[in-house]
């Protein structure tokens, strides 16, 4: 492998990893956001229930 080929190969490996990390980052954000959304929904549901019970 020549120096130029090495540089190119390193770029390719990096680019592949970068895309994979972006995908993982997006998934992690979705999971965290989904978890908190679920918490918020539970809170709202609990409040609704509380209001209903107060009638």
């Amino acid at each position, binding site marked *: 492998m*020549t*120096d130029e080929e090495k540089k190119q190969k390193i770029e390719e490996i990096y680019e592949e*990893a970068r895309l994979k*990390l972006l995908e993982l*980052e997006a998934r992690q954000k979705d*999971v965290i956001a989904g*978890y908190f959304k679920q*918490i918020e929904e539970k809170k709202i549901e609990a409040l609704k229930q509380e209001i209903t019970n107060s009638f």
Partner: protein
Amino acid sequence: MENEKDLLNKDLEATEDAVGLEKLKEDAELLGHEDIVARAQEKIDAINTKTQEMTAEADTQIERAAERGGDSSELAMEVAPIQEELRVVQEETVEKISAVENSEPTRTETVLNAMQHFEEAEINGSNIDAYHAWLERAVKEGIPFDETRTRAYLDKAVESGIVSSNYSLENMDNWLAAQEAESRLGKSINVSPEEFQKIAQEYIAANIKAGFTMSYLLSNTLGGYINENYNKIPRAKLLPLIEQFGDEEGGSKQRYREQVEKYGIDEIENTTEKGGLYDSEEYKTFFDLNKKRREEEETLFEEYLKIPFRMRTRGSFYLHESSDANNYIPDLKATNAPEGLIKRFEEFNKNFVEPVNQAKEVFEGKRKQSGITTEPNNYPDTRKITYDPAEPDVKMATV
């Protein structure tokens, strides 16, 4: 990296002395490899930074989960598979980049690298110094290449006085083949006419293959062969060689022909019989002492070639008639070579060369009295040893 190149350029403009320029040249050459290291590290750093950011973000959100009415351990379990994937991607990427960075070049690439550097050296006009600079750099950096062969190439190039115009690694093999044949021709004084013919033909073929014409060497070697053998080999065997390999245009063919026809012999005189000249004590003494000298010379050079290359500062490894064992001593001392080896060089002339010369003088006096001019084929060759650096062993100048 660019900054380093800029600095080097500035230094280059400001530097005028040879030592300073040599150092700058080395630094500039090293930049090629540093470029790869820097590129790899830059990418590894970027991947590490990104994964650390993502892990820190996950940790922060996990800590905040309880504050926001959730359960930290629940969120940790949710993101755990992603963090595991992240770890794998990070580790594999670092591993892959490091593998590329440190990958060994292939044999072909080694040659290509060498050719590139050699060609660059030629383009820069720095010739043999640049070749050596590249070679030393390759050794220092552990670049795999055929060091013995390349050093041989450089030594031969220096010795021939041809250091750049016709030679590159591309035709090195052909060139070395021609050198090998040339070397054998140089050692061929005592071979039979048939063997001389065979070697000469190989030499011509190797030179043609390498694209060189060095017929003058062949003609000169033939002249040496004729001079050494006109009174040992019958003229009927020598004349065909002259016709085949003599130089018509240069006039050597005519000279050799006349010499052999005038002074040559029909048959070899029988002088080795019991009681004959070559059965005498004087001849035996001369023969035996020369044999001992050559044995000592051979082991001396074997030992010499085992010491580190830096101690062998002479350009070539020849001990010609014009050279002398004493010539090696200052360099050996200056580089702190082993004392035992220095002592062997110091005592070589006294213990081995001078006794041979004395014995030869005694015998030649006896021969002159006898009137005998022919010599047997085993007549002692008093020439000094020749080491061909193209091969990792020591060879005698003649058989």
